[in-house]
């Protein structure tokens, strides 16, 4: 196209793209995320009640439930089921701890062919890594703030 037309079209193009872009259906996505994410929470609650009925103290029961849910997330990832559910659930499968397991197990599986050191070992946290870095960093900061607040407000 000629220079003048090119300049004109490049300016108009953003509007053309915005007008043409198909949008995700936010309502549909939210309903799926709510229902499937809620089901995952129900499963977590079920295990919590189960462990409590075994007489596990309330302070510790969270660790037990987290362990089971991480296992389930990892297991379903290994079976190739988790991503098929996530296609519909979106945030509903990413936000719960099962999604965290999926984000670690899926690269571990994917990069196994590059070996256990430079493949699995190096790439395992390629998605979860940032979550860990900023999660741990922010918990340290919050901890320091908490310490001073407690120190001064007695």
């Amino acid at each position, binding site marked *: *196209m000629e220079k003048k*037309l*090119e300049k004109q*079209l*490049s300016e108009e*193009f*953003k509007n*053309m*793209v915005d007008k*043409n*872009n*198909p*949008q*995700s259906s936010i309502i549909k*996505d939210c309903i799926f995320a709510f229902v499937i994410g809620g089901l995952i929470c129900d499963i977590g609650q079920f295990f919590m009640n189960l462990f409590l009925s075994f007489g596990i103290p309330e302070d510790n029961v969270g660790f037990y439930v987290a362990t089971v849910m991480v296992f389930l997330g990892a297991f379903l*990832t*290994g079976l*190739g089921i*988790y*991503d098929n*559910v*996530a*296609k519909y*659930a*979106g945030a509903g*499968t*990413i936000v719960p701890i099962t*999604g965290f397991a*999926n*984000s670690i*197990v*899926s*690269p571990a*599986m*994917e*990069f196994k*062919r590059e070996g256990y050191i430079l493949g699995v070992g190096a790439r395992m946290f390629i*998605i979860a890594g940032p979550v860990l870095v900023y999660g741990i960093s922010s918990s340290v900061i919050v901890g320091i703030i908490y310490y001073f607040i407690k120190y001064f407000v007695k």
Partner: protein
Amino acid sequence: MAVKKLGIQTVKLMNPPSILETATITGSKEGEGPLGQYFDVVLSDDLYGEESWEKAESKMTREAVKLAINKANLHPDNIDYMFSGDLLNQIISSSFAARELQIPFFGLYGACSTMTESLSLSSMIIDGGYADYVIAATSSHFASAERQYRFPLEYGGQRPPTSQWTVTGAGAALLSSSGSGPYITYVTTGRVMDFGVKDANNMGAAMAPAAADTILRHFKDTGFNPAYYDLIITGDLGKVGKELAVELVKKGGYDISNIYTDCGVEIFDLTEQDVHSGASGCGCSAVVFCGYLYKQLKEGNFNRILLISTGALLSPTSSQQGESIPGIAHAVAIERSV
């Protein structure tokens, strides 16, 4: 003097090379699509009996090239050059295939525009009298592209509606200085165009300006209008990019809407196969051309087509550094008779 040059970006081939044979190998999903019957080999296992997706993709290229040569009753020793490229880092699919084939090899990188890039260069090297038999090939693989450009296969993420599905497929075309057609008659080489799209999940939009520019330039250089062709088909703009390309070409003064489509829209059933905006990848225009279009030309259902493979010249690094996505498109005119 460049006697074969026409206008600014086009070459008119004086001794148009004939496409002797083509071969296609695709994955199972492509085989289930609307064009499945036109592919030579549809794999039931996308690993193709190999240990990794990369090895599978390279084997697809190698076997597609061998098949095209076999169909013409030739041997790799008879082939003067092979032009091939793919999406993987350092184009390993192509060069590792060439390692086995032992055909003098030019490796290309044009992202998904590689099919017409390789056809362009093959045609010119034959027309120039430097070769009698040349292979033009390319490949892409959904799984190898995902792990390089996006996420692990089992990662649970959602794809936006503008995203496209990388075709698992390899196509090879055997061009010759003699033969009874279809012939490659014109080559219009694209410029790199960038209208500032940054969304790597909307590559159709990023490539549409390049496609429109090359189509407009082809008409200007040759003096043809859209009616000259039975079909104008871009490589992998998908549904979103296709609409944008029509609009851009219209603003340039030509209406192509009634004879125009996109390989990325044709290869999959967009409503049934969960591919969102359509297909992408080097293999997309490769298998649609080498499979479906070549056979339609042979049978006389099309007489003249303009094939414009489109490439998004981004890398994960350039995207992460906030660069916009440059696009490129190369056009080749293929005619049943000259």
